[in-house]
């Protein structure tokens, strides 16, 4: 018998095997395989990863992966979302065996995200605003600027370069200070917070500097409160805040399963 694969969308709290109404990747039939009170949302597939050079198809697959996660969240509450293209070699039996072996850990992780969702918070500022703050707070740069004004043209050019170098350093220091501050403030109002690395931002923010991008795990009851805190941050001046979500807790699952 040729061994197959099981594509895993998420792990959920559910006690019974059911069929999901929504179709999976490539129209696959999605089902829920349970072990006691936890289940894996899966479909049967070939034991090879999904690949394509067709952009539209790749897009459809990835968004379908998301759709199934959303549907599972609607039915079972917050899920442990898998990364796109997570495939287990084997069949239903392999999946259940895997659930059994990792039951305690999966159960614990599900409890930790229960009644919570992930939200993204990105804080942007105008470079000129930060430069203004640097000028106000850094006497060293003001001195350089004053000296430069008295210089003859040639020497003034060198000073200008020096000044712009200093400015750059001070701007990144200032951004770091701002970032730490926002991180602490927001951290006080959410359950868990994580700084995102290498984050991409929508085009409309292209001309701004990203101060910090955070993923936050927030209890359903605290979403409003976080919104208020973000309003306050924005009102404090000089920054714009982007608040996205809710997402499945992609940044807050740490499954380390054994076979």
């Amino acid at each position, binding site marked *: 018998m040729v061994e197959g694969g099981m594509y895993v969308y998420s792990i959920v709290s559910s006690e019974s095997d059911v069929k999901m109404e929504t179709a999976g990747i490539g129209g696959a039939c999605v089902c829920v395989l349970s072990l006691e009170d936890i289940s894996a949302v899966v479909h049967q597939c070939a034991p090879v*990863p999904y690949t394509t050079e067709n952009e539209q198809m790749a897009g459809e697959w990835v*968004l379908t992966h998301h759709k199934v996660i*959303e549907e599972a969240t609607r039915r079972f509450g917050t899920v442990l979302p898998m990364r*796109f293209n997570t495939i287990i*070699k084997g069949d239903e039996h392999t999946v259940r065996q895997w659930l059994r072996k990792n039951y305690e850990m999966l159960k614990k992780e599900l409890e930790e995200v229960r009644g919570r969702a992930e939200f993204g918070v990105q804080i942007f500022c105008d470079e000129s605003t930060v430069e203004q703050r640097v000028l106000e707070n850094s006497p060293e740069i003001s001195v350089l600027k004053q000296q430069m004004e008295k210089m003859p043209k040639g020497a003034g050019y060198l000073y200008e370069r020096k000044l712009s170098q200093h400015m750059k350093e001070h701007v990144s220091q200032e951004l770091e200070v701002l970032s730490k501050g926002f991180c602490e403030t927001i951290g006080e109002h959410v359950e868990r917070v994580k700084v995102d690395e290498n984050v*991409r931002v929508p085009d409309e923010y292209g001309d701004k500097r990203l101060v910090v991008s955070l993923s936050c795990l927030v209890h359903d009851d605290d979403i409003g409160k976080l919104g208020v805190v973000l309003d306050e941050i924005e009102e404090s001046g000089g920054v714009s805040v982007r608040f996205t979500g*809710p997402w*499945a807790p992609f940044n807050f699952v740490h499954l380390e399963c054994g076979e």
Partner: protein
Amino acid sequence: MKPTRDDALVDLLDRLLDKGALLTVDVIISVGGVPLIGLSLKAALASMETMLDYGMMEAWDSQTREWYSSHKELEKDATVKP
């Protein structure tokens, strides 16, 4: 302010492709981030309209709004009758 999922395709793709549970287990034959898909999608981001034309995003958005507004009640339902 209220959280939004409008214009958040970038955020979603970052999560789907680069985050989410990674299983360190031998039976796993594929764990996300297949470069081909990652790359072609990232290129597709430049022309988000393609996906909008495709009708994917629209369905996604109305469904997620619905989910958000009824998130709590459904969660309760699910705990009562899983």
